[in-house]
């Protein structure tokens, strides 16, 4: 199996605190790769480092074999790296389908003269883009919401809208930041199905998730983080029985109960 | 070409007005004579526009109380244009097209006046400007007149006085507002004719609150025998205060832009000894009884001060002169025909106003000479006449 993403010695400090600490791992093509860990383990920071939102303090990240240090998020999007956000980052000032069309941006006609004068087949291209976006919405199960204002949609629908938008960029690797957070069990089941569908369509998926049921069922490979460090990694079976993981989780849960 | 368009526009608008009946004001038995005006009643030049408007209102009322002009009442139509040339343009269009005034008196600042002159000329509207710049009447425009002395005259008057005092090299500190900037240009151009050298040339912004740096620079310039400050508003008062604080040993000259009591109030004791050219209005009571202007000045001053409770300024006087000349011209013309009124304004001769004795001609649409200006000095917190 080829590696889609390789991380080596990745470190990020915030004012002396190491949110991510000398982390290294590899995501294989076609896999569903999960990252778990207690709150504050550095999972979202890791995503932000991979997608160029943060600059690492140390360490290197390779995407498709290419070193991607210093690349901006939009460079990475062009290379086939896309993501969703833990706190929804939906364009609330647009309709649902337009959100997805922004995801298609890098495939579309970006010439400003074409846009201003509506020339160069802009009308046709726009119609096609809209159709493509609507298809993607149907793919994530939002077919009936195409022309709704994003602001009027439910939280669960927006979660899936974000996935549709991320898919629209045509990613090789899709990073999902807590796709099931805040969803009820039946919605979580639908997300589970959706992630499998995405994976089957040939996209490598990496997700950060707290719902252990979902993670254990879906993942080919699981990475466990604690205080920015790798605790362990491996299959669901391996992780489930790792004593350190159990300790970390029990510890944090015990702390949560006390706090 | 221009005229054709305007005429077409006028014809169309008249037709539309008749058809729709949206014209402003109802037609009454004896139509009033409409006097249009646009002034800077608010904004940074309100100290000009405010007394100008009050003066017009007072005297229009007074004329109406005396039976009006040619048996018709006067109606004053006014728009505030703040400090904005664009607003002035729109206001003038409104006066001409919508209010259909018979004559326009107004334009507190030179910028506004310059912006509307093409409109007045195109509409063939007799227009008396209340602004200072010499460019308003030089070269002469057929329909445009003005009442205030020009900044060029102020420079000349000041330089005359400097010559008498043997002052040869001076420093200038000018406001960057329209008035200061324009006068600075005129004085710079005129100085060589009076053998005066400008050795330092500083400026300050209209909203500046401290002119000490500029004055310090002037103070440290060699050979400054006097300081001249063209500007209006509160700026000159701050200049005067700072001038006093820095302990200058040379005299200060101000312009006619500060010719109101407010300046002395603001500048306080620092204004002692400041010299400036101004219309005789400020020293009306101190004029000898045989001065031809005295009666007019005292009458205007007492009327204005009793009606408004404000101290009189020369700015309101300019509006008074404009109104009186227009009324006289209408009476001579026997009506409000614009061409006739214009001709009669141009024939104004020997009119005794607050600004001086006016002799207009086809080549002079101001009609004042240097004798209209008096050189004043501030003594004991009041204006006094220099012989």
């Amino acid at each position, binding site marked *: 199996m080829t590696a889609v993403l390789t991380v080596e010695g990745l470190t990020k400090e915030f004012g002396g605190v190491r949110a991510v600490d000398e982390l290294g791992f590899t995501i294989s093509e076609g896999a569903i790769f999960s990252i778990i860990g207690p709150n504050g383990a550095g999972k979202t920071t890791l995503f932000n480092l991979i997608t160029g939102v943060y600059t690492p303090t140390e360490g290197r990240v390779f995407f498709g074999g290419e070193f991607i240090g210093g690349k901006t998020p*939009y460079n990475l999007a062009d290379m086939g790296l896309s*993501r969703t956000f833990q706190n929804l980052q939906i*364009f609330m000032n647009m309709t649902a389908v337009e959100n997805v069309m922004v995801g298609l941006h890098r495939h579309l006609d970006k010439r400003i003269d074409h846009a201003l004068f*509506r020339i160069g087949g802009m009308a046709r291209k726009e119609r096609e883009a809209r159709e493509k976006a609507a298809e993607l919405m149907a793919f994530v199960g939002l077919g009936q919401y195409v*022309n709704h204002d994003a602001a009027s949609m439910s939280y669960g629908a927006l979660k899936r809208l974000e996935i549709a938008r991320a898919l629209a960029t045509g990613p090789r690797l899709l990073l999902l930041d807590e796709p099931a957070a805040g969803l009820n069990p039946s919605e979580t089941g639908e997300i589970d199905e959706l992630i499998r569908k995405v994976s089957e369509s040939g996209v490598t998926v990496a997700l950060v998730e707290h719902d252990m049921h979902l993670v254990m069922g879906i993942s080919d490979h699981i990475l466990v983080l604690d205080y920015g460090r790798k605790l362990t990694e491996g299959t669901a079976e391996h992780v489930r029985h790792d004593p350190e993981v159990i300790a970390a989780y029990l510890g944090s849960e015990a702390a949560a109960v006390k706090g | 070409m221009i005229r054709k368009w305007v005429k077409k526009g006028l014809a169309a608008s008249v037709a539309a007005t008749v058809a729709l009946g*949206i014209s402003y004001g109802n037609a009454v038995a004896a139509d009033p004579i409409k006097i249009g005006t646009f002034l800077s009643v608010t904004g940074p030049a309100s100290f000009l526009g405010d007394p100008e408007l009050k003066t017009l209102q007072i005297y229009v009322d007074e004329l109406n109380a005396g039976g009006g002009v040619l048996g018709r009442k006067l109606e004053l139509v006014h728009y505030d244009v703040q400090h904005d040339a664009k607003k002035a343009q729109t*206001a003038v269009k*409104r006066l001409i097209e919508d209010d259909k005034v018979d004559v326009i008196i107004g334009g507190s600042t030179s910028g506004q006046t310059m*912006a509307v002159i093409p409109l007045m000329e195109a509409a063939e509207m007799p227009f008396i400007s209340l602004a200072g710049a010499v460019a308003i009447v030089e070269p002469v425009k057929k329909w445009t007149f003005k009442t205030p002395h020009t900044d060029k005259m102020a420079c000349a008057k000041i330089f005359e006085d400097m010559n008498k005092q043997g002052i040869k090299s001076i420093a200038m500190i000018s406001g960057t507002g329209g008035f200061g900037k324009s006068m600075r240009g005129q004085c710079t151009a005129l100085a060589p004719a009076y053998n005066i050298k400008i050795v330092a040339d500083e400026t300050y912004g209209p909203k500046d609150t401290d002119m000490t740096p500029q004055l310090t620079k002037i103070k440290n310039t060699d050979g400054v025998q006097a300081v001249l400050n063209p500007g209006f508003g509160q700026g000159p008062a701050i200049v005067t205060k700072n001038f006093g604080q820095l302990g200058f040993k040379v005299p200060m000259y101000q312009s006619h832009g500060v010719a109101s009591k407010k300046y002395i109030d603001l500048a306080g004791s620092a204004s002692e000894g400041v010299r400036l050219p101004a219309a005789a209005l400020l020293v009306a009571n101190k004029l000898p009884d045989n001065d031809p202007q005295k009666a007019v000045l005292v009458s205007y001053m007492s009327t204005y001060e009793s009606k408004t409770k404000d101290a009189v300024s020369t700015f309101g006087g300019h509006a008074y002169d404009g109104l009186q000349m227009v009324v006289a011209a209408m009476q001579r013309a026997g009506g409000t025909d614009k061409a006739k009124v214009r001709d009669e304004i141009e024939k104004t001769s020997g009119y005794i106003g607050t600004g001086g004795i006016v002799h207009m001609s086809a080549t002079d649409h101001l009609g004042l000479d240097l004798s209209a200006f008096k050189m004043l000095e501030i003594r004991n917190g009041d204006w006094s006449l220099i012989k």
Partner: protein
Amino acid sequence: MTLKHPSTGGLLILAVIIAILPSILPNNFYMDVAIRIGLNAIVCIGLNLLIGYAGQISLGHAGFVGLGAYGSAILTGEFGWPAIPAMLVTALFVALLAFVLARPVLRLKGHFLAMATLGMGIIISIVLNTEARWTGGPDGMAVQPMMFFEYMVFGEAVWYWIVGAALLIAVWLSLNLIDSPVGRALRAVHGSEVAAEVCGVNTTQYKVKVFVISAVFASVSGSMLAHYGAFVSPEDASFFRSIELVTMVVLGGMASTYGAVVGATILTILPQALARFEDLEHMVFGLILMLTMIFMPKGLVPTLSAKFRRSPVKVEAESEAQGGGAT
């Protein structure tokens, strides 16, 4: 082009209004107000792309209007250029200036962006006030009338049609832009900058683009203003004018092209309506600004159009018909 444009309807209505207005307006004063509405609206449409759609405030746009006006005035007056090339070259110069300024300015956010654009506008206005050799200083300067070959473009009747056509073009361009990949990228910048980046949108580049476009709209409107009024003065570039323009945009409606037109219309007419209460003008103006922002922060047009929306089903049908255009 043969395809139905998403907002043809609105554009058609606007065209009809522009076409019949002159026969209703009683005289040239009303025509003058209408022309000034059009000129303001053109600036506001551009500014709305920046503020309403891309979410980047500018408190200095009057500076670009001023540069456009003075550029045309100086090139036609001092150098004897014909008006159209002067207007185009001025717009090009303004575009370049905006391009150079945009990168450092638009890196800033919120209040810092407000301060930077405000400072930029004030510096432009100080330069126009000071360089009297070229600009006539605070009193302004006369401008050559626009010549079109032998024909002198003069008077409200002609200018009305020129400005009316320009306004229609501006609306058309704005609607086109909004409903294109570029326009969506701009709106995405407003919605969530980080999400836009992740979607492959080079946000800095789009901010720069929209800043330049809005500056060009302002410049062209300024050039027309200069020729129409035959006069330019530094007030056209003042801080207060910039505030006025922003007010027009937010009153009419952020992120609504027609809102910009409505806002320009209301706030151009208002001072005329209040002309007899000059002392109150500022109070009323300030009050409108506050009340709009407090009670309908989205502005008139979006708030009202949201009110008129009925059931969601209906909305879908409608937005389908309009192609889900501007929100």
